[in-house]
Structure formats: C-alpha cells, structure tokens
C-alpha cells in the first residue's frame, strides 16, 4: 500500500492563479481530510469528507473548494490564490469507529507559496 499520496510536493503560484492539490489513498478509507499548517503552528482543518459525494467545511474553508467523486480521491481546489494561502497542505484519511481508534494517516504534504 502506498498509503496517502499527494501531488505536487512543491508549487509556487502567482496571486490570482488557481490550482488543484491532488490527494489519493489506497486504504479504502471512508473519511478524508485537508489541513493547512502555517509556519510555527499546528494543523487546521480546511474541509473533510465522510464518503464519496459528501463533503463539509472545517475550521478554515474560505478560499478553497473540494469534491469527492470516488473513495480514493479528494482534491483541494484553490481559486484566486492569495498570499495568505501560503502554507503546507496535508491530506489525511481514516475509517469510522467500529473497534478502531480513528487514527488518521497523513500524506507527505504540499508546500505552496503564493507570490
């Protein structure tokens, strides 16, 4: 299993550009998440999904959109990039409780800089 994979690893955007951060998991997890980590800070939840076709906002959703058409993929879309979106973005996945402790498995992160 590759686990959670993210592409690209690094990206520089100009203000106003758009891009999609890709996330794929091969563990058949129902739940998927997008977090951002600003310098010297913890991770903050942007959006999450509990299954294909179902998404919901997290703590900091403004400026982002997501979709979940398959169990495996959970892309994050940035429209009209702003310098405040400069951050490291992490995708994660987990499965519902049912004897398990809801551990989240994280991807390696995407470092995004908006200039």
């Amino acid at each position: 299993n590759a686990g959670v994979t993210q592409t690209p690893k690094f990206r520089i955007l100009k203000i106003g550009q758009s891009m999609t951060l890709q996330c794929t998991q091969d563990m058949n997890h129902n739940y998927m998440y997008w977090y951002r980590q600003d310098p010297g800070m913890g991770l903050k939840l942007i959006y999450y999904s509990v299954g294909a076709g179902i998404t919901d906002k997290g703590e900091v959703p403004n400026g982002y959109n997501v979709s979940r058409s398959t169990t495996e993929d959970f892309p994050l879309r940035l429209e009209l990039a702003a310098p405040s979106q400069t951050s490291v973005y992490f995708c994660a996945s987990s499965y519902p409780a049912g004897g398990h402790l809801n551990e989240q498995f994280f991807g390696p992160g995407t470092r995004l800089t908006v200039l």
Partner: protein
Amino acid sequence: AQTVTQSQPEMSVQEAETVTLSCTYDTSENNYYLFWYKQPPSRQMILVIRQEAYKQQNATENRFSVNFQKAAKSFSLKISDSQLGDTAMYFCAFMKDGTASKLTFGTGTRLQVTL
C-alpha cells in the same frame, strides 16, 4: 469548540535523558480521544501514541508514555531514554467521539535532542 494548548514552544534534552511535553485541552465532552503526533524535518506526520478518555490506564508505547489526567484536562507525553531521532515537532491533538474523527491540534513543541 475544543481547544488544545501546548505551552512549551521549545524544549531540549540530552541523549538518554527523559523529557516531558505538556498539553492541556478544553472540552465539555465526556467521550473523546487524545493523540501525540511527531513531525520530523521530513514533515511527515507520525502517530506516536493515543489515549481513549474512558480508559483510566495511561497509554504506553515503548519509550513513550502519557500522563492522562481527565479531571485536570491534561495529557503530557514522556519520552524516556531520548534518542537523536526523537528530534522533531510534537503535536498534541484532540478528537471528539462521533465527529467524523476530526482532529484539533495544538501549536506544537519543538524538541531538540542533544549529545
């Protein structure tokens, strides 16, 4: 909303010594989970240890153990026999039961293990 506080931005410990990282949280919930994640310079988020709130016994994973004080809402991490490879950011995280396994993170403690 839940909050997680890590009051030690940086700590240092000598190799083979023991260090304790502090974490407090604020919640009105009774059923929840607590986690410590390690983030080395590679940026990968690695689960170190987890604790279910309904369990009185403190979790232990090899050299890592926790001191969970539910009434005080405290969840500290003890690292015994510190190794150079323990150098990393450590994040405390809270998960409310039944909320799609969403995590709320603290701001982290940077641990440096020295010779």
